[in-house]
């Protein structure tokens, strides 16, 4: 572990998690976890079921409150903020199951995510001006839904819904993008497209991904963190992690 | 529109639909088609024809108050039937229009407006709670109607458009307290009531009187309407050991209170403490169960067990009309007086006109009243006797005391003006 930490170049961290612990009625889902993400890094978290992967994302975005520890995002302590304040700070989160507004059209889904008019008064006086329309179109093209703007979101395929949710994050231009299993349930060609999409959109931001699909992980990851029982088991490049005996034991033993 | 007074035939549904559709039209027609009589018996366009006169009955037949108001409806219908059997009023048969106040005060106001404006009734017999009376009062004053109100109540009111056939608080309370002090040697009182205007005002009157007699009020408690748990207050009573529990609990709470009082080992027949209630009539005992209130005393103007001939006839007629198991309480009797007092006033005035009936009302006597004899006071309340009854296991009261004279109604007792 020490070795891994040393190998990190002295760049500024976008996200630094230190000593993070959360317990549910005595069960420590995340236990004294520390994790650092650099600027423009694509970090993938893997680990067996129940390792605490999703809980870590929940903790970062404020959905779950930490019992102990700190989460610093560009110097801001996130554990003290509400969910929407964390979003305003520049953290975006995609859920495991596509979480979109199925009653609304693709356009409206993206429009609602457009970062303007986020308070009551703003929402009442929000107008659909050219800036909004242009931005929505731009994002829609990026997520391969440029021709489906007027379609109701519940009519999209599962993969398209995943893209839409990613698009809803992109329109907010977050500095840290967190994706929980972005290619789950996608066809092979959709996976390829998604991998390309991720490569493209990570140019000027950091990305934290949870994924099970090892091929996909290998395609996109700068570095990989393996979680086990709420703690970091191993960290480093894909090859390095794959050859770590502890990781092999956990996966085979599982 | 008021098809309910006729029996239904096969086409109820169609008739009903017709009724629904006909409402707006019928309202206008009804206004237009009213008989334009202008004789001396009816110079103000009331719903009076050569053969009939319309009156209203306005009580709750649904909702929480239906429990209490059912008896009043029955009494008023019985009185109307008896009057019709005797030839009606000024030669006209009485037809009644019954409306449901639904235990909801705005509904009372709405229905009273309908009765006065649309139906042009010559009198309304109705209301039970003070709140419903307060809600309709401005309407009766504005449209100049006549209301016969049957319930014993807190007083503090005197309207030219209402005849109060029940007792106001001082009539009921002072005699009762005097009696327990004199006959039972009571020195201390615990006042317990439901939390609304009648018990609070009654207890104020009681407290003032008790103070005047130089005696002690050892506690005063109110519980929300509909409260069902009285064990705490019963413990308090046990702690304070008053000579008298002066109770004005109403509605469903009554049942809970007396059952729990008995279960807590307070045997009311031992009179330690003695229970004096102003709210439990024979009607309420039906729900409480005679065995659960046996020994309590009630102070009011009428009990079913009165032995005068008027009452014997009344009870007999009432049971013939509404079933042998029925009981009659104070308010039911007072409601029965309404149509009779109205008839007497109309006949004295020789007219159905509200103003003339009002002018004729003070001084009207009813020698046939089940409670004995009543007379209408200038202030529209009744002169009446007050009696103390001792509750028996069979659900009836044994009358143990009766004031010698009629008590003058005093709706605005000194200190409340």
């Amino acid at each position: 572990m020490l070795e891994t930490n040393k190998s990190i170049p002295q760049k500024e961290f976008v996200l630094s998690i230190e000593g993070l612990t959360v317990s549910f009625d005595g069960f420590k889902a995340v236990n004294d976890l520390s994790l650092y993400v650099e600027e423009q890094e694509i970090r993938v978290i893997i680990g067996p079921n129940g390792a605490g992967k999703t809980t870590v994302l929940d903790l970062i975005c404020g959905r779950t409150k930490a019992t102990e520890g700190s989460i610093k995002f560009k110097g801001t302590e996130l554990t003290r903020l509400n969910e929407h304040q964390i979003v305003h700070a520049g953290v975006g989160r995609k859920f495991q199951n596509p979480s979109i507004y199925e009653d609304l059209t693709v356009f409206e889904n993206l429009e609602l995510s457009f970062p303007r008019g986020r308070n009551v008064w703003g929402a009442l006086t929000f107008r659909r001006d050219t800036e909004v329309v242009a931005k929505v179109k731009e994002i829609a093209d990026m997520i391969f839904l440029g021709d489906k703007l007027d379609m109701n979101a519940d009519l999209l395929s599962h993969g398209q819904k995943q893209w839409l949710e990613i698009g809803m994050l992109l329109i907010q231009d977050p500095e840290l993008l967190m994706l929980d299993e972005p290619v789950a349930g996608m066809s092979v060609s959709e996976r390829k497209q998604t991998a390309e999409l991720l490569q493209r959109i990570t140019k000027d931001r950091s990305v934290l991904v949870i994924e099970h699909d090892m091929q996909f992980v290998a395609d996109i990851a700068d570095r990989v963190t393996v979680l086990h029982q709420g703690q970091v088991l191993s960290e480093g490049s894909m090859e390095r992690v794959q050859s770590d005996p502890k990781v092999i034991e956990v996966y085979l033993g599982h | 529109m008021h098809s309910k007074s006729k029996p239904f035939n096969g086409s109820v549904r169609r008739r009903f639909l017709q009724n629904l559709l006909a409402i707006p039209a019928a309202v206008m027609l009804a206004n237009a088609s009213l008989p334009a009589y202008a004789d001396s018996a009816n110079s103000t366009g009331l719903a009076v024809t050569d053969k009939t006169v319309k009156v209203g009955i306005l009580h709750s037949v649904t909702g929480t108050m239906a429990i209490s108001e059912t008896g009043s409806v029955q009494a008023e219908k019985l009185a109307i039937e008896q009057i019709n059997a005797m030839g009606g009023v000024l030669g006209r048969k009485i037809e009644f229009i019954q409306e449901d106040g639904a235990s909801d005060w705005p509904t009372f106001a709405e229905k009273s407006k309908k009765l006065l404006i649309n139906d042009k009734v010559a009198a309304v017999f109705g209301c039970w709670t003070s709140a419903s009376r307060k809600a309709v009062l401005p309407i009766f004053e504005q449209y100049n109607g006549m209301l016969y109100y049957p319930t014993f109540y807190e007083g503090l009111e005197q309207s030219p458009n209402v005849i109060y056939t029940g007792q106001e608080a001082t009539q009921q309370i002072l005699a009762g307290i005097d009696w327990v002090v004199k006959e039972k040697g009571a020195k201390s009182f615990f006042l317990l009531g439901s939390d609304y205007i009648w018990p609070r005002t009654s207890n104020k009157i009681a407290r003032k009187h008790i103070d005047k007699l130089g005696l002690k009020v050892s506690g005063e408690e109110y519980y929300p309407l509909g409260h069902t748990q009285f064990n705490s207050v019963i413990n308090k009573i046990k702690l304070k050991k008053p000579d008298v529990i002066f109770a004005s609990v109403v509605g469903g709470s009554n049942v809970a209170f007396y059952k729990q009082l008995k279960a807590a080992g307070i045997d009311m027949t031992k009179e330690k403490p003695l229970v004096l209630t102003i709210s439990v009539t024979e009607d309420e005992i039906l729900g409480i169960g005679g065995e659960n209130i046996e020994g309590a005393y009630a102070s009011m103007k009428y009990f079913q067990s009165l032995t005068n001939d008027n009452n014997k006839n009344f009870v007999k007629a009432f049971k013939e009309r509404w079933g042998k198991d029925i009981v009659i309480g104070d308010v039911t009797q007072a409601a029965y007086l309404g149509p009779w007092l109205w008839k007497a006033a109309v006949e004295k005035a020789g007219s159905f006109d509200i103003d003339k009936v009002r002018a004729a009302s003070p001084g009207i006597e009813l020698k046939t009243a089940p409670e004995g004899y009543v007379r209408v006071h200038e202030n529209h309340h009744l002169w009446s006797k007050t009696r103390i009854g001792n509750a028996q296991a069979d659900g009836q009261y044994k009358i143990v005391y009766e004031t010698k004279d009629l008590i003058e109604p005093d709706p605005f007792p000194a200190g409340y003006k």
Partner: protein
Amino acid sequence: MFADYTMTELTSIFAMQGFAGLILFSVFVLMALGLAIIFGQMGVINMAHGEFMILGAYVTYLTSTLFAEYLPSIYGSYFFIAMIFAFIVTAALGALVEWAIIRHLYKRPLDTLLATWGLSLILQQLYRSVFGAREVGVTLPDWLMGSYALNDSIEIPINGLFVMGLTIVITVGVALMMQKSRLGKQTRAVVQNRPMAAAVGINTEKVDRMTFALGCGIAGIAGSAFTMIGSTGPTSGQLYIVDTFLVVVFGGASSLIGTVASAFTISQAQSTMEFFLSGSTAKVLTLLTVVGILMLRPQGLFSLKIRR
């Protein structure tokens, strides 16, 4: 305020007051238990719960009349039979209601609130048409209405003891049933994962119906027991509904222990405050406290902290 009384008096008063609190506790548990099953396990908001209770009371009334007429010799024991009848009748009505109304609304829990409110109106009018608008007096066997004198100043109402005993029996019975019996296990399985329960061969429709009927049946028993302490009239059921829901919600809906704990807390708070303050003030303060605590713990007293 206690200066006027001797120590013995005070001791006995506090003993009796404690007992009054326990009676109130039992009453709350009895009221809430049926609802806790229906609301907690099935998510159905049954606004007609009070009317089911009153049905139990009316059944008790009918049974007592029957016994007085035909079986006066064993009148003293009619109450037990009445409770059984009350359970059967209300449970049957519950099953009927579930079949006719509730099962169509499982996906819309807030709508069950409206539909059962309509049902409560219908039941009220039904009682009024059948039994009359007046309250009926349920005559109780003499042995139930007395009190047991512990010493000179402490008297324990027997019906209070009876209600407490009944509460314990029913609570334990329900708890055992939910833990051990087939229906209980099936109910919990259905609550936790409906499709899976169906997949392993549980007849979920039947389980729903039985659960709803069970909840209503317990309401019926409660109503039967309440003839000892309260009134029986067409609208008496409405007196209980707010308290009942608060007890269940305060307890944390899904747990029976929570319901019992919340009934205990609310009853003790209310009965203590009633003794020191006036009745209305005590009621207001109790309700305010419950609302306040619910704000702090929206999921009630007993709910597991889990990852959402």
